[in-house]
Every structure is written in C-alpha cells, then in structure tokens.
C-alpha cells in the first residue's frame, strides 16, 4: 500500500493539466494583450493547473515570506508574468487524455469538480464568509476528488475494477477503492495536499469529505453538501451517483432536506455555467 502511494505521489509531478485549460493557457500566453483576469480564471478552473502553481510558489526552495493561497494572491505577490510563465511551463507537459482504460470520463469529472467548487463558494457567500476565505471553499471543492484523476490516469486498469464494483455492488466509491488499492481518493488527495504545502484546513477537508461527522468543521460540511448537490443535479460525473446524508449544520441553516437546501441556493446551474465559460471558450 505504501509503495502504491509513494509511486502515485511521485508520478503526479509530471501529470499534465486538462486539455481545455492547456489550450486556453497557450492561447492567452501567446497574446501580449491578453486579459490577466482570464488567465486567473483559467488557472482557477483546473484542479491540476492550480495545484501546480500553488505548489511551485509555495515551494521551500522559493522561500516566500508568506503562504500563497489563491491565484489572485499569487498575482499580487509575484506578478502576473511569473504566474503566466508558471502556467505555461505546466502547459508544456502536454494534456491529460480525455479518455483512459478505466473508462473514467475526464470531462465529466472536471465538471463534477467545478460544480462542487462553485456550489461550495455559493454556500460560503450565503454564509457571509469573506471573499478571501470563500476561495478556500471553492478550492476544497475543486480538489476534493483529485485522487480519482490520479487513479484513473496512473492506475486505469485497477480503477476500472473499482468502478465495476461500484456499479455491481452499489458500494461507495471510496470503499471499492479501499478494496482494490488499500487506500482511497480522499487519502491520496490529502497526501498530495500535504506535499503541495496547502493550508491544513484544506488538507483535512479533502481527507474527510466523505466523513463530515468525524469532526466539526464548516468547510468540510459545505464541501460535502456541495458534492451531494452536484451529484443530485447531475452536473458532471465523478464515478458514482450515490447521495450521502447532508450534514446537520447545513440543514439547520439552509433547509430540512436536500431539495430545500438546493432551492435556497438560487440558480446553481447559471453559476456553474458561468464557471465553465472560462475553460470552454
């Protein structure tokens, strides 16, 4: 198990970003008049790209005096041109294939991640959380299932079995992963988070997004709820349709059941559409 983990974590270094954003990055970095706001958005909407950038700027070699937690923060701190060139260096690694032997649809996965992120930020705004911290909610949503891409990309044949088990036995995905890999996407995601020097509450959120009852944490409750809403509304697909229980803290504030919570958030589809524009252009 430990060797699986170590190998995976090593390999992720060379993992390319999603094709949609690689295209956009090349486009934006080839145009001297491109709008810096577009670059920020593209980076923010690709789980691979954003983590590579945050990892590079927070690398101990580099030694910034403070931890960078968002793309805007990076732009203010080290400048748009450096961020642009960091994005380009990731783009040169190629693109993450849209299909794989696992039969895991990467486009649908990206959609699931993005919608979870957008819904988590919608929650944060409703909760009147400051924009700076609201980004943590967005980022946790974006990265919560990162471990799944890692499995699909690097261990596609085994991950195919996982998806098979989910389909045939109706097991939660993470339990099927445990059976095949002796680890699951939440663990792999949180280990990567540690390696990338992400803030601790983000790492915990990735680790516990299927176990919101383990500890009291607003960000975990929100991301867990956002994950269920994304599945309920079928915006993208992350490998399973099973809806988990909504955390009490969310029901207390937003409504007595999933549908009531969804209704209280307003036009989720419109918000998600807005998010997708940046990678689909």
């Amino acid at each position: 198990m430990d060797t699986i983990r170590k190998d995976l974590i090593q390999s992720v270094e060379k993992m390319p970003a999603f094709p949609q954003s690689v295209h956009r990055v090349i486009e934006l970095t080839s145009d001297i008049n491109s709008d810096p706001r577009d670059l920020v958005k593209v980076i923010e909407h690709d789980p691979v790209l954003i983590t590579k950038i945050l990892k590079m700027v927070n690398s101990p070699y580099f030694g910034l005096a403070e931890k960078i937690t968002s793309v805007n923060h990076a732009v203010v701190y080290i400048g748009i041109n450096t961020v642009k060139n960091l994005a380009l260096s990731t783009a040169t690694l190629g693109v993450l294939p849209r299909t794989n032997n696992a039969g895991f649809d990467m486009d649908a996965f990206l959609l699931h991640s993005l919608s979870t992120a957008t819904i988590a930020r919608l929650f944060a705004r409703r909760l009147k959380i400051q924009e700076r911290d609201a980004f943590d909610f967005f980022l946790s949503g974006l990265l919560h299932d990162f471990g799944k891409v890692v499995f699909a990309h690097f261990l596609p044949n085994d991950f195919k079995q996982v998806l098979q088990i989910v389909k045939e036995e109706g097991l939660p995905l993470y339990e099927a992963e445990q059976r095949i890999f002796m680890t699951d996407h939440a663990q792999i995601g949180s280990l990567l988070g540690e390696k990338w020097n992400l803030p601790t509450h983000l790492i915990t959120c990735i680790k516990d997004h299927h176990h919101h009852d383990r500890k009291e944490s607003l960000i975990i409750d929100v991301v867990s709820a956002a994950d269920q809403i994304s599945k309920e509304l079928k915006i993208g697909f992350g490998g399973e349709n099973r809806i988990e229980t909504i955390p009490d803290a969310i029901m207390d504030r937003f409504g007595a059941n999933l549908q009531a919570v969804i209704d209280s958030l307003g036009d989720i589809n419109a918000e998600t559409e807005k998010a997708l524009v940046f990678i689909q252009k």
Partner: protein
Amino acid sequence: MKIRFWGVRGSIPSPGSKTVRYGGNTTCIEVETDDGETIILDAGTGIHPLSQSLLKKLPLSCSIFITHTHWDHIQGLPFFVPIFIPGNQIRIYGAFDPVLQKDIGDVLSRQMEYCYFPVREAELKADIKYNSLHERQPVEIGSARVTNIFMNHPVLTFGYRIDCNGKSMFFTGDNEKLYNIYQPGDDYYTEYENQISRKNALLDDFIRGVDVLIADSAYTEQEYPAKKGWGHGTYNSCVDMAKNIGAKALYLTHHEPLRSDDELDGIQKQLNAIEALPVCIAYEGLEITL
C-alpha cells in the same frame, strides 16, 4: 556607509552625446560599508568601470546582490574583471527562479554558455559562490546586514535594504506600483484591493524610515499609461513611496535609454520644488556618504 552609482540607465546601455552627464551604463550601485566591505547591487554594464576601480583592492572580497535577472541588471557580470583573477572571493546572491526551477547560479551561468561568451563559468579563476536567497533572508556582511523583499516586476525581483551602524538604504530594483487588474463591480475587485493593501503594508513596514531610498523612476506620468504593466515606476510614484515610508532622501534611477541629459535636468528642476525631502536624479559617479 558610502553609496556610489556606476550605472543609472534602464533597459539598454545608452552611450552618446545626449547622455554624457548622467551616463549611459545600466544599473550598478556600489555600497562601501563602514568597515570597508564591498557590496554591489546589480551587475549592469556599470559594473565594468566599477571593476577597474576595484583592481587596487586585490585580493578582492565582495558580495554582489542581483535584484533580478533581466539583461540590464546582469549583463556586465561576465566583464567584471575580478572574476578572472585567482585569490578573489566573490559571493553572488539573488532569487531562486520558480519558472526554470533553478537557483541564481544556474540562471546567471547561462549567459556564459558557449554561444554567448568565450569563457565558461567553470573556467573563472576567482572563488565564486552563488546563494539563492529566500524572501527576507538576512545576509551579514561585516557590520552591515542586507535583507530583501519581493517587488513588482515581470520577473521575480528583490528590493534590497542595507543597514549599517544605524544608517540605512533601500534599493527597489525595478518596480511598478501595484494596481488592480479587476474593475469595480468584478467579483474579485475588493478581494484584490485587499491583497494589494496587505502587500503594500508589508513593503512600507520593511522600508520605513530609511535614510536613502533609491527607486526605479523610468517613466513620466504622461508616458506611463502606454507602459502600464511593464514593471517600472514613475517620478510621482517614487516620490509618493518616499513620502509614505518617511525616507530622508530619494534618488531616482533606471532612466529611459532615450531620456537626454537636458530632459533629466528639466525633470530635476521640477523635483527641486518638492519640500518633503530632497529628491535627486542619480547620475554616474554620484556618491552619497551616510
């Protein structure tokens, strides 16, 4: 400490009849500490005449701090004569390059590769040591302490503060005042504004109260709008910075290559009207004693 300007031009060396008085060499500032240590800020072409003056100090021990690796700040390094002389000790400091993932030594030795320069880095005779600095990592040189902070330029750029026996100076390197990339009404506008305020506050605290502020004033206010985002300051932005942090004196550098002596004289005349502090357009050979 003594501060001497050996190069005050930005972008490209600009010799010629119109730049005789202020000088045409690119950025290089020598700082001599109270106990006679030599600190050099940037290695533009001004480092060549400086190297001639240092030949009387052999064997030489000196520390070169690179603000950033754009040509006009490193181009003189291969012509810094002491690097060819055995017995000299040269320490070179700068930022790690996050894009190339290489430290300052690797980045600088690139300009001595076969296609650019006849002598390879490995063939230099002096004892040369490179050090990539973390942000705010202090370096003690005799009685002086050099610290750094990230500025705003298209490549990572350190501003350096030097403190020595109660006297202090700060050199911005190339620097543009931060501005909001969002428009009022954009989702991120306020958040970005807050980030800028925080970064500015960090910078102000870092520089506050220096005796001498040396700042990049490449552009006039009229020129700036067409050069926004290029990473340089204006005469006004430098004066504002100096007032904000309570600098005792301001020296302006990184003059545009086409800015003539007469134009600079004209600008100096306008700057003389400022009452808050003395403001001086730096020229080659200018020496400040603190």
